[in-house]
């Protein structure tokens, strides 16, 4: 194919040349593709191994050392009960606390506070 023009030209048609170059099909050698695919398999295997050694494996061992699922269930249960008592205590709890602290022994809340009488009296 000749890239001729009607008149003699010293300017090559760069767009046509580049377009011709773009049409050339590049086929990577099969060996290169195989090497790249093999590398992907190796990379996936390496990721799996390193995750087992440093990530989940270490955490898993720590979890087991601390008691495993019974420990986790106990912690969660205690947290739920604590949250419930803190934010929405049942009605009998106040009565129970008052009875224990201020009921029959005659102790008043003011008795539990620090007395500053001596300090104030001294000045």
């Amino acid at each position, binding site marked *: 194919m000749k*890239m001729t023009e009607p008149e003699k030209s010293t300017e*090559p048609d*760069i767009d046509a040349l*580049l377009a011709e170059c773009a049409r*050339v099909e590049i086929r990577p050698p099969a060996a290169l*593709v195989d090497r*790249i*695919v093999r590398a*992907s398999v190796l990379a996936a295997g390496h990721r799996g191994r390193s995750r087992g050694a440093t990530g989940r494996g270490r955490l898993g061992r720590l979890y087991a050392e601390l008691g495993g699922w019974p420990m986790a269930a106990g912690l969660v249960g205690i947290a739920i009960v604590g949250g419930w008592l803190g934010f929405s205590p049942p009605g009998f709890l106040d009565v129970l606390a008052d009875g224990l602290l201020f009921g029959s022994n005659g102790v008043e809340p003011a008795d539990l506070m620090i007395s500053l009488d001596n300090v104030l009296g001294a000045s």
Partner: protein
Amino acid sequence: MAARVLTERVCPRLLGYAGRMLNDWNEAEDVVQEAMLRLWKVAPDWRTGEAKVSTWLFRVVSNLCTDRLRARRNSNRNISLETVAEPPDPARPALAEIVHSQRLAALHDALSRLPERQRQAVILRHIEGLTNPEIGDIMGIGTEAVESLTARGKRGLANLLAGRQKDLGYEDDGT
């Protein structure tokens, strides 16, 4: 296998790009392999929508080519026209087609003589068919800068090829 499908889809363009940037198909293969290896490493952490895989790969290939071109400059290793037109490995018919084509060899030679950034912009725009924003993303510059580099690159190519009418298939009817 997904890795093979992806490799077969992106490798031809990456290899073409690296080959034209470096003017050395063996080095281009190494660059493509390295870029794909980096892709496999980051693949588990890849966030959808962050960047197109192809754009990311072109950027990695660009960086690797820049590194190799810099190393080549430092070691004063010249890639001559003879190297470009060297008979290719018969195991690579498609590449052989490129190298054996006199016109394309002349173009590749001219490309290799362009400043690196201009060459990069011209190849990505006019041979790989990327858009200016994509090229800007790959090269880390704005769209206007891409346009400027491309225009200057094409002017440079025209100047470099002006005296090689026969190589390009132009009729020399005046002489």
